[in-house]
């Protein structure tokens, strides 16, 4: 459709500039994590260290309970993701399959929790978790995050896109709602569920603030929390090691995204968000 493609070059320059701004910090993080202290301060801008070293990573492995951190983070992220997927599917199904009074009101009520800021709920939830004796445990982090208002919205949305005749055919076979959900609906909305799960996982993996409140003892830390150890008051720091830990924190979500990229993009582009 576009006739003058040779005039597009200035748009490309603008966008490439944006891409550089977005990606350069990450590449910088990558290269710094492989530099020695000297290299960091002397050839700061050099993207390719002359002799990339893995000293920083070795230090991290030896002196930090890295495996423990990874396990903590993985446990919390996976549990939250699984819980949110299940509760969202169940609730979304209820809204699509059943009719009851105040259905819309309940739906809106659940959806609105999405807009409640964390600072409103954090203190009472903290006190509650504390009373349950779950401070400093991963379950204290997981428990308040078993459901997600946006997840319910997305699942209801995808299920609504299934043509009604498919569900009605199931009912004519006298299939129970559970069977209709698991045998008919789920296989059809698999892409949306997976895309949603990936987003939940990445967000939980990266979560900092709520774990900050609950996890006080170092061994219970998640990877993002471990980063706070590298911020010293004077501003000087073991930057190479900090970058190494940062890389390890950033890598799993990034890899997850890169491998499922097309998939996520397509699901996003299809469903969109229309208010």
């Amino acid at each position, binding site marked *: *459709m576009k*006739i*003058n*493609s040779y005039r597009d070059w200035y748009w490309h320059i603008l966008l490439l500039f944006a891409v550089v701004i977005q990606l350069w910090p990450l590449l910088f993080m990558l290269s710094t994590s492989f530099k020695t202290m000297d290299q960091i301060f002397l050839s700061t801008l050099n993207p390719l260290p002359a002799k990339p070293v893995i000293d920083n990573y070795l230090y991290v492995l030896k002196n930090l309970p890295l495996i423990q951190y990874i396990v903590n983070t993985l446990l919390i992220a996976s549990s939250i993701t699984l819980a949110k997927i299940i509760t969202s599917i169940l609730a979304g199904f209820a809204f699509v399959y059943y009719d009851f009074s105040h259905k819309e009101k309940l739906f809106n009520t659940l959806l609105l929790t999405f807009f409640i800021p964390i600072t409103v709920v954090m203190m009472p939830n903290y006190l509650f978790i504390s009373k349950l004796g779950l401070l400093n445990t991963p379950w204290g982090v997981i428990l308040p995050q078993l459901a997600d208002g946006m997840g319910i919205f997305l699942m209801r949305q995808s299920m609504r896109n299934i043509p009604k005749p498919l569900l009605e055919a199931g009912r004519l076979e006298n299939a129970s709602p559970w069977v209709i959900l698991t045998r008919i609906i789920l296989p059809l909305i698999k892409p949306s569920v997976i895309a949603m799960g990936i987003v939940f996982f990445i967000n939980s993996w990266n979560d900092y603030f709520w774990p900050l409140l609950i996890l006080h003892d170092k061994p219970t830390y998640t990877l993002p929390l471990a980063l706070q150890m590298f911020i010293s008051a004077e501003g000087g720091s073991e930057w190479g090691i900090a970058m190494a830990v940062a890389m390890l924190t950033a890598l799993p979500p990034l890899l997850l995204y890169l491998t499922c990229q097309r998939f996520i993009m397509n699901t996003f582009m299809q469903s969109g968000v229309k208010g």
Partner: protein
Amino acid sequence: MNGIIFENVCKSYGETAVVKDLNMTIQEGERLILLGPSGCGKTTTLRMVAGLENITAGTLKMGGQVVNTVEPGARNIAMVFQNYALYPHMTIWENITFGLFIQKIPIEEIKARTEQALEILNLSGYEQRKPNELSGGQKQRVALCRSLVKQAPYFLLDEPLSNLDAQLRLQARTELVKIHNLYRPTFIYVTHDQVEAMTVGQRIAIMNQGALQQLDTPDVIYQHPANTFVASFIGSPPMNLLQGAFRDGALWIAGCRVNPPTKWHTLLAEHQELWIGIRPEQCCLSDAPMLHGQIEFVEHLGSQRCIHLRLHQDGQRLLCMLPADQPIPTGTMGVSFSWQHVNGFDGHVGQNIELPNRISHNYAC
């Protein structure tokens, strides 16, 4: 002159050629139809004129200027899209006047043009409505209105009637010709419906698989199709194409020997294998028939009947249109036709072999 000239224009998407070596001249102020089956390249050709598609090779000239790289907005074209392309968030008035405001035409002029156009298309009073409140036919007229007020020298239409039901289409066809007569822009109209093409067009360009088959007036196309494709595309029911061979001074069709005029013998001899084209309405019953066959099926079409014949000897099909007031024939039937109605096509290539059709005597009908 303000005509449009295609010089060896080609369009490909990667490896696939969609328009092949198009050479065509569209006269200023004429109504030209681009007609053909789906995928023949007619819409792509139209969009190349509009500037919405890049031209892969060749030159496109409009008004004497080469326009290959000119922006669509600079070509002074009004276009009616197949799905009308009305802006859903604007009122009808805003939709129609959008382009005029962009061009910074004075507001009184805009008002005058719009009100006139609305009246011509019977849309007065609908100005404040939104597109989703209108029916298909009304939306189509709004799209026409929008193009009309632009008063551009080029008026392109991409299958504008295909989303209307049959009744509306009839009406709309006459409206389109009326609109053209208002200020005589160069009209280029894409359609796959041959009735539309024949009734609206002053000249028709028939395309197939990216290549121009024939460009001429409806009459000529109907009487003298350039090749077998055009012959079978135009006309409902389509022209009969019968396989024939010319041997020993006579033409053999379906095992029957028929005698074409002597003037034609040399020409026919050059081709040996032939397709003989004769339209169903040009066949008639005869006592001294040229061809005969078994009646398979009779279609009742109101004022006429269409007889499906299976010719004896080699089983080719022949369609014959008879007036409905004649008795319905049964069993075997004999058919004759006049040589002045016959078109001959080469058996291998399909091109019309240009039989001279002015002959002194005619057979049967």
